[in-house]
């Protein structure tokens, strides 16, 4: 089964680093990129996205606010907030929204752990 992941980050470098990690860990994933929260909301409204990885510090709507908005329509979608802003409060708010927190700089281990958990949840939901 091919899954679709949405990458939301205003930084092209960050999206490139994320895409490289996906190529190593799960080349079967289809990737869609968005550069801000508004684009991300449009993408999710227009097509079936399975998971989303969302930067926190973006111009306009920030990553946590975007997660909160996605949760209204997709209560069970596996989501991760990806940020170097490792303040306890930011991580805590991500958890409250039932989203994982993945630290920047991104490592294959951290992304791999999130993806395996996400795939398990997607398979369970499909049963």
């Amino acid at each position: 089964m091919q899954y679709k992941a949405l990458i939301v980050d205003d930084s092209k470098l960050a999206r490139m680093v994320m895409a490289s990690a996906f190529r190593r860990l799960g080349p079967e994933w289809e990737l869609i990129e968005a550069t801000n929260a508004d684009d991300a909301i449009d993408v999710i409204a227009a097509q079936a996205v399975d998971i989303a990885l969302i930067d926190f510090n973006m111009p306009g709507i920030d990553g946590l606010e975007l997660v909160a908005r996605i949760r209204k329509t997709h209560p069970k979608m596996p989501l991760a907030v990806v940020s170097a802003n490792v303040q306890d409060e930011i991580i805590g708010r991500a958890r409250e929204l039932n989203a994982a927190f993945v630290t920047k700089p991104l490592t294959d281990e951290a992304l791999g752990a999130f993806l395996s958990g996400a795939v398990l949840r997607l398979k369970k939901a499909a049963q």
Partner: protein
Amino acid sequence: MKIDASELSEIEQDALAEIANMGVSRAASSLRRMVGEQVLLSVPAVNIVSRRAASRMVERGHSPKLVAVQQSFEGPFSGRALLIFPEAQSLELVRSIVGEEHSLEDVIDLEQEALAETGNIILNACLATIANVLRRTMRMSLPSIV
């Protein structure tokens, strides 16, 4: 406003150095993961200086052309954090982060924004660690190149 370093007690200066050291160490570990090579840190020192003296300290021993990534923070305390390095090395830094799989042209196109993102990761690692140690929350601005 003029602040004299002697207004701070020894224990206060020591605490500042220790908190800064925690932030910088975490930032160094982030940089190490990005470039894939060991990052060496000097022993931290606290200096309370005027703006002019600060700019002289930064210039000393470096090429006159510097590039800086700036990020402001607000909260229980506020300020600006700058990550400053010689301009001549900025392309090299970006290259070592994106890896060999991207062409030099790609990297040049990307340089400004890649520096901002790299600075964002390093400065956030430092500032967020300090905020966590102090159990306070700070708001961080978007990074900009100055």
